[in-house]
């Protein structure tokens, strides 16, 4: 009988902790997008909201480690009642981005964000997700009526003088092609973004997306692969960690995988990570980074 070969996975080294993520709204969201790789929803509390003192504790550790930039995501970060104070605390230490669906960015929130951006020497980027150039495309993924509500959030930001980054996933068919990008950029100009900033994201076949399209196939794995040092260092997990209410995870994608939790404090997570997850395949093959 032939022995089963050992299943070996390549590792990603932690080259430098440059980017620190916070799952600041946990997995709680006001929307229930059908492509969400961590299945966020109004009722998913598997990761809880983070409060200001908790965020501050990690920011203090990040400062001593020389972290370069901060990202806040969820769930929907603007469901967190302390989000503006949290962003202010991060902006005192470095450039800060917040990933949002935009629905809760009312004029007073947009104006408060503008004040925070102006008060810091570092960049504040608001990144808004939209999944199509019309309601028919977007609402099928993000929910009925969300297209108009997202556009209103974008308008409120532009009225406040902020130029958000717009993210579209490949759930919007053709968005990743050159023609699709051109069409999307034209759409963004048509809604008042004179200098459109666009990020196109591949899909992760996890969580809700696994049910919407398909799960990863057996061949979509890094098992047995050897990555060159350059390839390993190109992965976002070589320079990031993700903080949630449950601890510190390797990256923003794998927070539903208990074995991707690397410790309680950042200092416990400064070590390599085995790339045994299917999403690792997407990051490697597609060159995916969750950073802007």
């Amino acid at each position, binding site marked *: 009988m032939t022995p089963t070969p050992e299943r070996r996975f390549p590792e990603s080294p932690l080259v*430098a902790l*440059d980017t620190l993520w916070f799952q600041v709204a946990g997995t709680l969201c006001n929307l229930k997008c059908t492509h969400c790789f961590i299945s966020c929803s109004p009722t998913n509390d598997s990761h809880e909201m983070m409060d200001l003192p908790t965020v501050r504790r990690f920011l203090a550790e*990040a*400062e*001593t*480690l*020389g*972290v*370069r*930039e901060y990202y806040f995501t969820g769930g929907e970060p603007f469901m967190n009642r302390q989000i503006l104070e949290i962003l202010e605390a991060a902006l005192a*230490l*470095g*450039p800060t981005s917040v990933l949002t669906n935009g629905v809760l960015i009312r004029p007073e929130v947009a104006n408060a964000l503008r004040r925070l*951006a102006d008060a810091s*020497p*570092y*960049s*504040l*980027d608001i990144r808004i997700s939209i999944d199509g150039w019309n309601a028919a495309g977007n609402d099928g993924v993000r929910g009925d009526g969300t297209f108009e509500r997202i556009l209103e959030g974008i308008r409120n930001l532009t009225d406040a*003088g*902020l*130029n958000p*980054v717009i993210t579209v996933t490949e759930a919007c068919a053709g968005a990743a092609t*050159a023609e699709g*990008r051109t069409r999307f950029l034209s759409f963004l100009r048509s809604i008042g973004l004179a*200098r459109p*900033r*666009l990020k196109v994201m591949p899909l992760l076949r996890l969580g809700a997306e696994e049910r919407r399209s398909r799960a990863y196939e057996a061949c979509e794995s890094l098992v047995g692969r050897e990555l060159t040092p350059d390839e390993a260092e190109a992965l976002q997990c070589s320079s990031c960690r993700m903080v949630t209410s449950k601890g510190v995870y390797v990256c923003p994608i794998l927070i539903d995988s208990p074995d991707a939790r690397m410790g309680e404090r950042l200092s416990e997570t400064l070590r390599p990570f085995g790339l045994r997850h299917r999403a690792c395949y997407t990051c490697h093959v597609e060159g995916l980074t969750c950073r802007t």
Partner: protein
Amino acid sequence: MPDLKVGPVTVDHGSFRRVAFLGGIYSNYLALGEALKIARGRGVDGIFALGDFGAFGPHPDRTLEILREAAVPAIQGNYEESLYSDAGDCHCGYTDPRDNHYAQISYDYTRDKTSPGHKAWMGTLPGHIRLTIGGRKALLCHGSPRKINEFLWSSTTPEPFIRRLLRDHDADLVVCTHTGIHWSRFVERGRGIVNCGALGRPANDGRTHVWFTVVEARDEGLAAEFVPVAYDHDRLGREMLDEGLPPEFVETIHTGDWTTCLEILPGKERGQSRF
């Protein structure tokens, strides 16, 4: 050929008091000539060039002839690394297809017009230079001390990160370029980062002049002064058009506003940008 990707050669150049740093020249040989005159007039005891001698502008060999004739000590930028190794693109590090489109036009022109002898010389340049200014340890790099094409912008290079870079690279001062916009941030007396800007195109500030930087030892530590350089930008623009370079590039030379390769700008710098 040295394999600079494995570990950039570092050359030690000794002690100085007042030093001029020339950032990306991008084939703007007219501005380079003016900058050298201004720097010498200010009594600097050293002039260093931090890479990206070609790109954007016309007749790349003219810049290289001036630099080599003046024996300006220089390090490689990503352009020199790409040109001497005959790479297919500039490795500028852009991520947006709109930026890469114009970057490729620049690179193809520059690769075609740079003579083989100059390309070979680029392969002899170190990746880093070390020197001291008033006893402070300075490390010269192109993008960042850790990566030749890393962008160190003012709004994305915070103090805790600067402290880490200085600690990790045993330096009091890091001098870099690559972004095209000059800035400095000192985290304590005589310790910090200076991005010396670019002589190749204006600093996206609606003004036609370009910039270099003088760092000087003073009682209170180190001081960085950004020096504007006026030059015959009408002539440069004419020559760029004659060479078939994009009118978008020439518009930048005439207006001081970036029209290309600006998607890479972080939020704050983009917010201050006309386009």
